[in-house]
């Protein structure tokens, strides 16, 4: 885990603005924070240098672009066969992210499949061929993004 960095209330205000819209204009952020555009720019640059801001992400409606089935898959199995499972998942879908977990699964992956059959096949293969104890496939319908819900607190006043 990386070290905590020092940020204040104004930094948080800027971060919140950019979470709401990564394309927010400097002058609009400046106005809200009661600062100059230069001051906001400098703070954003500092937050990048500190490793707080890592980039920007765009969220599309994937189904309108032909990616029909966003899903998550949780697998409970022996850790040493994890790479084999990941390879199988990657072949049959587009993996967004996969991580080892602590909890009811050994690892979980978020993915997008083109066809429902791919998800079903995936489940069967992992279950039968790789000796997993349990495979949970969940197809997402109607995801809601609630990024404002994140709590950010200043580490200095």
């Amino acid at each position, binding site marked *: *885990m990386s070290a905590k*960095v020092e940020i204040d209330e104004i930094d948080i205000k800027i971060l919140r603005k950019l979470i709401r819209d990564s*394309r927010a204009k400097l002058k609009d952020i400046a106005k809200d924070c009661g600062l100059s555009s230069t001051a906001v720019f400098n703070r954003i640059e500092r937050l990048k240098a500190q490793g707080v801001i890592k980039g920007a992400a765009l969220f599309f409606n*994937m189904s309108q672009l032909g*990616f029909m089935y966003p899903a998550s898959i949780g697998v409970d199995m022996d850790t040493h066969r994890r790479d084999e499972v990941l390879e199988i998942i990657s072949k049959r879908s587009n993996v967004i992210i996969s991580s080892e977990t602590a909890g009811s699964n050994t690892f979980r992956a978020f993915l997008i499949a083109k066809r429902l059959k791919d998800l079903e096949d995936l489940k069967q293969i992992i279950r039968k061929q790789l000796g997993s104890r349990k495979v949970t496939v*969940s197809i997402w319908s109607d995801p*809601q*993004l609630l990024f404002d819900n994140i709590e950010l607190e200043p580490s200095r006043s």
Partner: protein
Amino acid sequence: MDNTDLEILKLLAKNPQERFSRIAKKVGVSPRTVQKKFQRMKEVGVILHSSIIIDLSKLGYQGEATLRIVNAPGYDKAATIDALRRIPNIFLITEIIGDFDVMAIAAVKDYPSIVNMVYTVRQLVSVEKAEVDFVTDTQFPATKGFNQLFLENNQS
């Protein structure tokens, strides 16, 4: 969605913060056209949201929890979702089809905060069962994967 829309989307996927004037130059249309098409894609829901990516480990977080919930018989899923929306740090909620009914992803600071969250969720009358997994990812709201996935599948 026409070809120009797709070109704009591709450039935005590469860099969500790219200036419209630069996109316009690359696509060969006016900045005003880019602006209009961007707005239109937002209105019809092709573009859902654009956020910066924050490394939450720098701000005192240790990971993410995924909650999978089975709704109690006789209760609407909407009741569960509505209650989840009000729990701090839950930043994605979706209905799911499978062994569970609702899934939520939350940023977590420490072990007690996971325990509290799971306790809160299990107390809800509309929740029959809640399972939790913890991962040490702290890239909020996601890694770059989302954009890259789109690019990988739209090679021209």
